[in-house]
């Protein structure tokens, strides 16, 4: 194909990688490195400007903002990780089954996917929360339900394509059982594009978690979460705009980091897509 695809700018990819890795690290070791208890209320030190004790200042209850941001990384990225794991398992099994078996089962599963694809995340989340109440678990379930079908479709498409390869036929003729063929010859071709897609989606899903929490539907105060923090700070926006800026910046940087990383991964792992983009 014509090698005119957008070249991978290694500098910005490295920056994105460091950014993403930094957030993951914060989510992992957050509770060990927070300078203050993110839940500790200190009404004597409300609305403090950034200083040496509170590097990013304090909020309307005197809680340390930096500590809350670090703790929030775990809430947001942790729930995104759970969402991704569930989505990947669902997508791989449904898409893999539909692609490998084909026929009626394929038709039924894909119509099911179509149904789920028609429901926007926020609408589904509102429905779930209306029916089952607010909370992070419901938000996670809502995001999983509205995303798995994309993955199932992509997996099915890749499986259908890989199934026509001669080496899959050769394995069939050699008597390999379908599950072994899937694991040996189909899965290795499915994983790289899926990994790229999943990385791209981390930012997207983090936005959903933060967005729903901002609306008061997901994570509930006082649990530190970026969307919740923005919602808390909304009331003081005109007098203390920095309170909105910090969690907003955290969300923006996290989404940016994972998006760029996903983009770079896709360029590397999905040659067909890169070639297509060049046209």
């Amino acid at each position: 194909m014509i090698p005119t695809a957008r070249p991978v700018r290694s500098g910005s990819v490295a920056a994105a990688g460091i950014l993403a890795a930094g957030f993951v690290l914060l989510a992992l070791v957050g509770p060990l490195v927070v300078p203050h208890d993110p839940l500790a209320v200190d009404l004597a030190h409300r609305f403090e400007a950034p200083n040496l004790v509170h590097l990013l200042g304090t909020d309307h209850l005197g809680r340390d903002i930096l500590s809350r941001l670090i703790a929030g990384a775990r809430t947001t990225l942790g729930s995104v990780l759970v969402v991704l794991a569930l989505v990947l398992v669902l997508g791989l099994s449904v898409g893999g089954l539909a692609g490998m078996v084909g026929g009626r089962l394929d038709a039924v599963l894909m119509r099911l996917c179509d149904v789920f694809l028609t429901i926007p995340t926020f609408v589904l989340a509102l429905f779930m929360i209306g029916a089952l109440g607010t909370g992070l678990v419901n938000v996670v379930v809502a995001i999983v339900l509205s995303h798995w079908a994309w993955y199932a479709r992509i997996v099915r498409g890749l499986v259908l394509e890989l199934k026509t390869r001669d080496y899959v036929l050769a394995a069939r003729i050699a008597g390999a059982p379908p599950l072994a063929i899937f694991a040996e010859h189909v899965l290795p071709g499915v994983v790289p594009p899926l990994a790229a897609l999943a990385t791209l989606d981390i930012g997207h899903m983090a936005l959903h978690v933060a967005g729903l929490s901002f609306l008061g539907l997901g994570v509930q105060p006082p649990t530190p979460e970026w969307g919740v923090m923005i919602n808390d700070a909304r009331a003081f926006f005109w007098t203390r705009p920095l309170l909105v800026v910090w969690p907003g910046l955290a969300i923006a940087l996290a989404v940016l980091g994972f998006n760029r990383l996903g983009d770079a991964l896709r360029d590397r792992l999905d040659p067909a897509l890169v070639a297509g983009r060049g046209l």
Partner: protein
Amino acid sequence: MSARVLRAEGLSVESWRDTRAGREAVLLVRDVSLEMRVGEVLALVGASGSGKSLACAALLDVLPPGTRRRGGRVLLDGAETEPAPLRGRVVASVLQAPRTAFNPLRTIADHAGETLAVAGSRGRVGRAAIGRALADVGLGDDPRVPGLYPFQMSGGMLQRAMIALALLSGAPFLVADEPTTDLDLVAQGRILDLLASLVRERGLGLLIVTHDLGVVARLADRVAVMEAGRIVEAGPAAALFADPREPTTRALLAAHRALHEVPA
């Protein structure tokens, strides 16, 4: 290596097209019967599109999408059997294009492991068997071969590796669908010699699909000629070359001679 004779009777393969009147079946292979015997080479010849490959696929029930088997049965030593359990256990296969028949992400040893898993052996016994099979096909000199990826090998080497996998399976019968088409003349000759020696020394039963009558003359004990989905003529190879009865066979022979014999 217990089985002696593998016989396919009355194999038919159909495709279908949708018309206004409903589904209309199109017969691609009609009533084809083939008999493979251990220690013998049966050649299936015919022009492109005559249904040779489909007939072989029908034998193992690995037909491509959009086609299906209609009728026919497979007999192993006279007992009727399902095609699926034959794959890899009774019948091994060598495909036409070695370049695409190997997964580019897997080494030769990985592919061999898969074959061994079907045969039910693993571990050290398996590794020794891999070494022996590779040596049998002339790839034993280089100890790196099992660790090579398909793109690191030439077409001839890959075709040898595929034959090694077939040997590794321990299946008494081998179906080779145009095994030399993608190779240069030198490699072709070597692969054919290898196949001939395996039939002679190991008593393999070989079904070789080809449109090259040179291959037939070199290897085959018996020949079946296909035309438009059916077998039009079958018999010992010598008789067929000496006294071709069907116009199809004569045409194939004439075409072959025109191509390969220098005019006097």
